[in-house]
């Protein structure tokens, strides 16, 4: 038992742990960013703090689509573009979202509120077509339902601002 505890301690305190912490650090820094991204300055600081090269931090950040190296809106609207959602009516949902937000996939609304992204799978095939706004999943959508969700988001944010 104590041997195992020792080895766990060795692992988590070894210099290599800094590299293992990289992905968590990138995600946490992105979450803390009002613009939902990891800035170049943050890449440099993570590298410095974890004792690894900037190039390695950038490598990991640029590999994962969940991490953005460019500023995004305050809310990320992720639309599943994979086969099950496609078959269940994703096209109508996406078209409605694009019209309501006034931007296409990969773009941010001029007010900096929403970024619309396509993702490969949300793990919600049982409720396709599905989208995810920040950490909240929405499924079995229609075009009208998707538009209603966006409008509700706006209202909630407006209330939050005035409160």
């Amino acid at each position, binding site marked *: 038992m104590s041997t195992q505890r020792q080895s766990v301690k060795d692992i988590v305190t070894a210099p290599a742990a800094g590299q293992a912490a990289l992905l968590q650090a990138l995600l946490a820094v992105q979450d803390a960013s009002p613009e939902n991204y990891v800035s170049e300055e943050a890449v440099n600081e993570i590298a410095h703090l974890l004792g690894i090269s900037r190039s390695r931090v950038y490598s990991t950040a640029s*590999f994962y689509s969940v991490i953005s190296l460019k500023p995004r809106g305050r809310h990320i609207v992720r639309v599943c573009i994979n086969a099950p959602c496609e078959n269940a009516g994703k096209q109508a949902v996406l078209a409605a979202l694009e019209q309501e937000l006034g931007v296409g996939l990969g773009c941010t609304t001029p007010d900096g509120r929403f970024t619309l992204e396509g993702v490969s799978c949300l793990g919600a095939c049982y409720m396709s077509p599905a989208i995810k706004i920040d950490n909240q999943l929405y499924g079995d959508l229609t075009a009208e339902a998707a538009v209603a969700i966006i409008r509700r988001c706006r209202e909630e944010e407006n209330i939050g601002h005035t409160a």
Partner: protein
Amino acid sequence: MTETITFSLNGQQVAVPAGLSILDAAALHGVRIPSLCHHPDQRVKANCRVCVVEVEGQKNLAASCATPVTAGMKVRTNSPRIRETVQTILELIFANHPQECLTCIRNGNCELRRLAADYGIREVKGEMATDALPLDTSTPSLVRDPNKCIKCGRCAEVCHHVQETGILYSHYRSVDVQVAPEYGKSLSDVACVLCGQCAAVCPVGAIHEKDDTALVWEALDDPAKHVVVQVAPAVRVSIAEEFGQAPGTIATGRLVSALRKLGFDRVFDTDFTADLTIMEEGHELLHRLQSGGALPLITSCSPGWVKYIEHSYPELLPHVSTCKSPQQMFGALAKTYYAGKAGIDPADIFVVSIMPCTAKKFESQRPEMNASGHQDVDAVLTTRELGRILKQAGVDFAALDDSVFDDPLGISTGAAAIFGVTGGVMEAALRTVYEVVTGQELESVEFTAVRGLQGIKEATVDLAGTPVKVAVAHGLGNARRIMDLVRAGLADYTFIEIMACPGGCIGGGGQPYGTTDTVRRQRIEATYRVDAGLALRKSHQNPAVAKLYAEFLRQPLSEISHHLLHTKYRNRSLYKLKG
């Protein structure tokens, strides 16, 4: 004692030491398995898949570089399935590789092209899908052509795990992968030291020295120019490799003949100013010891190292010797001392260096390197470029007779010859400092404790009753470990030698392709043979250097020495963190 195991290699039972990869085990028995990402000095990457073999009992082909051989294993390296697979893999790589082989700088020594020849690739099936990314020509030393990159990862490995400079790494995903600095930055915008170790291990033409041969031809073809050439110590033990001779061939005499055939007006030797460096740096060390100057003193011959400390440890710059490198001292003297003696206007003198090094190109273009009123060194060619220019001139290197360097900047000692290997500058300095301090003749000139390929070497030398502790590091990863100690105040060294490249200059980024630790050892061994074969082996015994002081410089660290032979460094720290 390593255990021996037997396994079946293409139906034959063979014995090998346990713990080898299939690729290395097969090589011991005359089977060369093709590979691209594999490099004998590097960790396993297993991403090119060209080295696949059949292992009985395994459904899929195994990457032989990454699969350890085990007792009783049955391996087949040559079968219709393997040939077909390797051919397909090569065709896929070619489909993403510009078909510019005739005009590529690696024409003649490209590892991918060699495999194409070996496997008889006559057409690239499927569609060509090459990139049209911009070239990085931002530095005086290296050119990066991302379109030719096969993403093998050798450069990233040497940049991150040997040099630990952390510049090149794999970015993005899938078909978009690029091996580059972060954010697509150019090499001049990051803390790249231009050591060229990436170029030395690149199997193709994706990163290579900036070719300056045209500049040298232009000078040689200009009758108004008096073109003098200097050759670094490490080139004489490697240039023969460019003409197919074995690593470790000493070719000093033939090299001088070859340079004369090219039409240089004078063929001089960087070894002369290596001896001069020892006089200046040795006295700088003594001066710092006596006057309480910054210690440890750290050598400044290696321009990759100097750029590294300027980027990474600028607060330690007062420790770096103010001596210019031998290359730059040579240029400054060629355009003053030599110009005066020969009665030539220094404006008409064109100084060419032949260096094992890509960072020397950068060093020669530092704006402060012009104490004579003219740029010290006008053009720098790497060993590889010299090989090309000699071939263009039709010089049959193997058939040349020996000849000797010109006077006066061509006279040198064994102490200068060993500048080309890790530990060499230290050993040369100790040979002179010992005799200057003690006034006694050194009984044995060979300081074996600072020799060899161990990453960090230490020795303690008794200087007239005072023990002086010295350290030697080669490869910037090792340099970093020593610098961390110095910064933390934990290093009790008096003098430190650092060379940016593993093995020292003989392993420089501009040396002939195929450098491995085995080749480094052969070049090192040859270098020590050059030293042992010379009558004079201590820099202070160099009669031409003594004459230079008598006629021109007066004494080490004189005012004119300081003006011409010493320099200043700058803080190149790129990234300032808030707080």
